[in-house]
């Protein structure tokens, strides 16, 4: 199936020589929630801004639903909605007029019923006549989302959508994003909250220093790059790991009370049975055990460290 967003060999060098994007290639599938992760200055916002038309591309090509975002900007932009990172709002306008303005700007005829639906879905209906400057930060964020949804986009970019909003509002937004996805809208979000990506995304892309480090299904990414650990709480503390067991990836806690065995999730033979047998042979008994899995955050940190050339 044709990707809904196709980025090919996209590079961007800003005035002053800073290279924000380096030969980026990326496909976004229709109807998915795609999370773009990366540290500050990685190029997330530049990539989104180029796709949406806010920043001029350097070299390369971006297609939105088959339309070149530069040459066929009308067709491309009319199906895209953007919620920017900054809380940039028309402070003196009412919620209703600001959202209605956005719909007109995107070439759509007046449709009060749709605006009402969007405002109600975002719990903004009661505030429709309030000036935006009178709203809280979280409400302003909702207004930006309402503006982005006013023209019924098929692709929605959310640049740090839940930055600075409380937990309840964040949960509400996650529900709204899932609801949009169920209506067939493709969602691309950038976030600093790994929890957000872990909770919502179908696929994840990691960008660092302007380069795409990895793109994969969330589950697959966590399986491929994640690690599992088995911690054994010992009956008797050990002073050191016996020499015969040193070939296994075992680590002893400082107090000698726990042994941690790290193994590859993907590997068919994890080696757990062998380790347990050998421990038994050496008379090392345990009273309890606990297994844990890498979080997406750990995978992300490792990926970024790896891209920097640090030890993973």
């Amino acid at each position, binding site marked *: 199936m044709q990707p809904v967003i196709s980025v090919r060999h996209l590079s961007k060098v*800003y*005035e002053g020589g800073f290279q924000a994007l380096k030969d980026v290639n990326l496909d976004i599938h229709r109807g998915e929630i795609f999370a773009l992760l990366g540290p500050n200055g990685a190029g997330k916002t530049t990539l989104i801004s180029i796709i949406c038309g806010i920043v001029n591309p350097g070299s390369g090509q971006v297609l939105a639903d088959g339309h070149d975002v530069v040459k066929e900007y009308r067709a491309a932009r009319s199906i895209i909605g953007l919620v920017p990172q900054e809380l940039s709002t028309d*402070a003196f306008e009412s919620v209703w*007029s600001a959202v209605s303005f956005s719909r007109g*700007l995107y070439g759509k005829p007046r449709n009060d019923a749709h605006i009402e639906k969007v405002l109600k879905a975002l719990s903004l209906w009661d505030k429709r006549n309030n000036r935006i400057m009178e709203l809280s930060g979280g409400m302003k964020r909702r207004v930006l989302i309402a503006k982005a949804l006013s023209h019924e986009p098929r692709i929605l970019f959310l640049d740090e959508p839940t930055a600075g909003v409380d937990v309840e509002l964040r949960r509400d937004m996650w529900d709204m994003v899932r609801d949009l996805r169920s209506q067939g809208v493709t969602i691309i979000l950038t976030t600093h909250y790994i929890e957000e990506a872990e909770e919502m995304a179908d696929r994840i892309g990691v960008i660092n220093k302007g380069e795409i480090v990895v793109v994969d299904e969330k589950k697959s990414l966590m399986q491929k790059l994640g690690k599992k650990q088995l911690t054994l709480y010992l009956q008797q503390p050990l002073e050191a790991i016996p020499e015969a067991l040193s070939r296994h990836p075992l680590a002893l806690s400082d107090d000698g009370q726990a042994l941690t065995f790290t193994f590859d999730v993907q590997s068919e033979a994890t080696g757990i049975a062998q380790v347990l047998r050998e421990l038994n042979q050496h008379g090392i008994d345990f009273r309890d055990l606990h297994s844990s899995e890498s979080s997406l955050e750990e995978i992300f940190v490792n990926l970024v460290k790896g891209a920097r050339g640090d030890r993973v």
Partner: protein
Amino acid sequence: MNFYAVRAIYKFEMARTWRTLMQSIASPVLSTSLYFIVFGSAIGSRMVAIDGVEYGAFIIPGLVMFTLLTQSISNASFGIYFPRFSGTIYELLSAPVSFVEILMGYVGAAATKSIIVGILILITARFFVDYHIEHPLWMVSFLILTSITFSLFGFIIGVWADGFEKLQLIPLMVITPLAFLGGSFYSINMLPPIWHTITLFNPVVYLISGFRWSFYGVADVNVAVSLAMTALFLLLCLAAVWWIFKTGYRLKT
């Protein structure tokens, strides 16, 4: 053509005008009317007629033109500068609109406001000064052409400015002196030859002269030259705006 976008921008800008009625409409009308009261009613009667036109009536076209220029520039420059300042420009840049449509919305609204102010000033002046309009169609044409041209110029200033101070710089430091020295209060034919020649380099002379001709049939320079100069400035502004949108100057990185 994205007419919905043009209408949205136009309505949005006009809504700001109605919201700030005192600042947008009442203030320029009042301040210009003071000139009519002082120079028209109070001391105008003691001044000699110029080119056969009573002094109070003589200054009306120049004052209307002066207000038209400053208002057009202020309206349009603020209209595009404020979204840049507040960050909401992102929406304009990411919307399916061409630069022609953006111009039609912003410049159309700015010019509309200026024309409203200009007409209100003319109506107000009638209470203090007796004047007539010999060529009403030409008067309206000059009014519209000048409003559009200087709204375009204001749009350019709004894109160029990187602070509120710069936004005021051109209207206060350039347009006001040019209007005052461009024959608003006198005929440039009254100047010594050397100053007359220097004044002809002032583009505002041609606007005021042409506009005054539409009122009284008298002009400092040929009306065709006035029209040609206004049209030339319009084309220069259009070319500058085209370049701004082509390069993304101060709009896109």
